[in-house]
């Protein structure tokens, strides 16, 4: 299985911070690209994402912070016509699962797995009754 590449696109420096945090848990992180929308117009952000994803010969996953923001719309536009999928709501559990499984699945299969991981990552831990 070839490795599925990933690009994180977020507000401020969240993407970079997520990769740094992942490295604390996972060890050195390579082959994960990061991008911030800070100070960018729609055109500039879309162009920057497009330049990164067109280097992926077999597609890949664009991980976005939340649905509906400029990272989302520009990511979807840049992915158009390519084997590139957009997954929103990236968090540390999702990024860690990506790192552990990026060599084991195809693009869509991995993206669906990560969606499930993200959904499962929210758990309310209630204190047991005293």
């Amino acid at each position, binding site marked *: 299985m070839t490795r599925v590449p990933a690009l994180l696109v977020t507000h401020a420096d969240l993407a970079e911070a997520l990769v740094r945090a992942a490295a604390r848990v996972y060890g050195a992180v390579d082959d994960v690209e990061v991008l911030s929308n800070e100070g960018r117009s*729609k055109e500039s952000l879309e162009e920057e994402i497009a330049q990164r994803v067109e280097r992926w010969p077999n597609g890949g996953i664009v991980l976005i912070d939340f649905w509906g923001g400029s990272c989302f*719309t520009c990511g979807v*536009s840049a992915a158009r016509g390519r084997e590139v999928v957009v997954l929103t709501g990236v968090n540390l559990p999702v990024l860690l699962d990506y790192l552990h499984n990026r060599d084991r699945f195809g693009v869509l299969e991995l993206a669906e797995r990560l969606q499930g991981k993200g959904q499962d990552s929210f758990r309310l831990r209630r204190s047991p009754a005293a």
Partner: protein
Amino acid sequence: MSWVLARIDDRLIHGQVIVAWGLRMNPRRIWIVDDAAAADPWERELLSSAAPDIDVRVVTVAEAAAHWREEAAAEGGAFLLVRGLGPARALVEAGAAVQRFNVGGIHYAPGRDKVHDYVYLDAADRDAARELLARGVELEVQDVPASRAIPLTALDNSLTRS
């Protein structure tokens, strides 16, 4: 009710609009006024999908101007988004009685110079701004509700000279 925010922002629909303004003002409809996006079904679907719980309408300047009064009398709040000062002027010239535009983001492009962190203008932008001001339309720079609104004329005094 109806028009509660008319915003100039080259990102059109995005996080600040949906989260910062949207959660505060709860618009029922968002009118994205953009000739290019309105002509492209793929783009219209993308922009609408960005706010799945709100009725998003992607329309041309002419369509927005034609529906302006009807929307003004409609129930629930509405947002209006345009990409730049040029389309904002075109909308007002086409008959939309916008009293105030919130200037939320006109980002750097070659030929534009900086007047604020997220506002860059070129000669055509300034012409459009002057025309809007001459028609009595207020232009207020403000990215999110929590930050202070600054008149565009206070950031670029060339706008008040003729």
